[in-house]
């Protein structure tokens, strides 16, 4: 096997997968950081970006090891949620990333798929870590999520293991054009529906989505888009009686 694939090619491939896992390991922290930038402009509530950055960095570098040592020494002090995130979610994934470098991946599709599922399950375990567990013989709110989260960690690990043991397909090719424009269209619709109403947001979203393929011909797209918008504007509010704004707010007033 190794001679056909070339050793160096496998090595670079593994490194990029490992780097991907490292990014995945701190993805929630990065997400919260990006989210927190909004608080500068007064959008949303939550911690500011500086606080987020500092608290996660200390949790990752100092807090979690300290908590580990503390736990080993029998100290049951309650850890903060940032430290728990680092402990439950980030550290296991870093460990997986390090292990990945030394593995021969025989089916990247299964291996990466399994690890990402495992990451999701670990994240769910962290998210339900503040919930109450068993109380005597009755289930607490956190029991079932933890049970199934644990099960999914095991299953994800199992799938990843089959990716190491059995030959299978590699990573599939992802295209960016379709997903990007369809997502852009969906997000635009979600943001525009309240202020701009069905007519404007549906038509614009239609045009954005149509950019998802290079085969779009604009004249027919605009005609179809206009007809569809008109149809939806009649169907949803009038025929089905679902209340929604029709026209931009500033025009109506």
């Amino acid at each position, binding site marked *: 096997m190794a001679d056909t694939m070339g050793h160096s090619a496998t090595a670079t491939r593994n490194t990029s997968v490992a780097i991907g896992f490292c990014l995945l390991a701190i993805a929630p922290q990065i997400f919260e950081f990006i989210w927190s930038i909004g608080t500068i402009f007064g959008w949303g509530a939550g911690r500011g970006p500086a606080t987020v950055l500092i608290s996660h960095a200390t949790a990752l570098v100092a807090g979690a090891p300290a908590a580990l040592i503390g736990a080993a020494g029998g100290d049951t002090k309650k850890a903060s949620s940032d430290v728990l995130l680092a402990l439950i979610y980030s550290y296991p994934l870093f460990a997986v990333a390090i292990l990945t470098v030394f593995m021969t991946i025989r089916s990247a*599709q*299964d291996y*990466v*798929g399994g690890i*990402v*599922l495992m990451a*999701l*399950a670990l994240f*769910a375990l962290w*998210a*339900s870590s503040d*919930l109450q567990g068993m109380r*005597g*013989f*009755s*289930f*607490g*709110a956190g029991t*079932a*999520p933890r049970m*199934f*989260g644990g*099960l*999914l960690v095991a299953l*994800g690990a*199992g*799938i990843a293991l*089959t990716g190491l*043991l*059995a030959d299978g397909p590699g990573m*599939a*090719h992802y*295209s960016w*054009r*379709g997903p990007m424009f*369809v*997502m852009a*269209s*969906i997000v635009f*619709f*979600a*943001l525009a529906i309240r202020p701009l109403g*069905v007519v404007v947001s*549906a038509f614009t*979203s*239609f*045009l954005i*989505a149509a950019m*998802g*393929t290079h*085969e779009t011909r604009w004249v027919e*797209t605009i005609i*179809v*888009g206009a007809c*569809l918008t008109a149809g939806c504007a009649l169907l949803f509010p009038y025929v*089905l*009686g*679902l*209340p*929604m704004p029709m026209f931009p707010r500033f025009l109506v007033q």
Partner: protein
Amino acid sequence: MDIFANLAHGFAVALSPINLLMCLIGALVGTLVGVLPGIGTIATVAMLLPITFGLPPVGALIMLAGIYYGAQYGGSTTSILVNIPGEATSVVTAIDGHQMAKQGRAGPALAIAAIGSFFAGCVATVLIAVLGAPLTKLALAFGPAEYFSLMVLGLIFAVVLAKGSVLKAIAMIVFGLLLSMVGSDIETGASRMAFNIPELADGLGFATVAMGVFGFAEIIRNLDAGAEMNRDLVQQKITGLMPTRKDLIDSTPAILRGTVLGSILGILPGGGAVIASFAAYTLEKKLAKNPSRFGRGAIEGVAAPESANNAAAQTSFIPLLTLGIPPNAVMALMVGAMTIHGIVPGPQVMQKQPDLVWGMIASMWIGNLMLIIINLPLVGIWVRLLRVPYRLMFPSIVIFCAIGIYSVNNAPVDVILAGVFGLVGYWLIKHDFEPAPLLLGMVLGPLMEENLRRALLISRGDWSVFLTRPLSAVLLAIAAFLLTLTLLPMLRAKRDEVFTESEN
């Protein structure tokens, strides 16, 4: 005779003008999505869930049911004429059906497909009516432990019958169970995994996830392949719909066998129309005196799978209506539709909502009658629809879905969540995970958790309750048996692979 009284009542409900209209709309929409490749039944039912909001519950469910079995009719048209399955359930119909069309026998192929479906639909309707009441009585004897075991069995069935890796299918179910736990806990009211997002406090919307994973993800995936599909449409005009005497004689036993097989596979949890059509085709090939005819335009190869998928599509309503447990993803969506209207699916539905249950059963027969009319004389119209290019279709679906999701709760966040689940679904497809078990897990999640909790509470924390109660033990034993049956050959194959590798 109770059944006749009930059926008469059902027909009275189904024949009211509004319900007839709903049935017709369902059948038309079903045929439409069945004909058009690239839009699945699950996505369509998910898309139309919000629309049923403004309708009376009976009409809404009649319409949604019509879409499901209507799609089985429509799918065969595309399979036969274009050699692209319009629907996953008519994949095998394309093999012989398209050959028949190429030989200039498209008319008889379409006719036999429709006749087979109609016959199967009638049988399945009777079956639902006959089996409904006794199964409901059985269900009333179920305690929480039995319910939990039954759901485990259903999920295991789904795993066993899913294509691809067993491990992956189980993982998808567990993922679905986890997703179902987002939101408030039923018993304590504690907010679980909601991250203080108010829109998540009520849990992830079922329609939202379904639309994302099946609607948006399908679109993104289809765009990958290039929007323009190669459509090798049989161009000549379809003449002579009537099958010959020989066709009828050849296909009658195939239709009968397909109907029986489809009805059984439909009732089993995890089954459904797709597997039924494959199984029926295989069975015909095995039984045929001259199997080499298959793949070259054998009429049995059209008759059997088409009867089987329609029978299965209808009999899969049995577990839903009697036990309240959805056997497949479309039925899971029907649960969603019922809950939107405040109906809790379960054995009590049959007694408390006779209008709904019997009206729906009667409407199935009426719907089948409508479908045979919609499909045979009007086949030309449906074929013309196939010329609508995907580049115009997909933005329309995106917008329609987006407005639909928004209208459920008037919540823009739901639309974005559906988009995120679209990406998740795209990723799942790329990694060869099947999304249908995920949906099933998500629907069964709250039910399973509730029954598990209740069973353990009653037994005072004793897990052995699932094994000491006889019914529950039998159900679990079947589940374990099935799972080992599927896992054994896989393990052996894996080990063989490992061994051959190490020998090199």
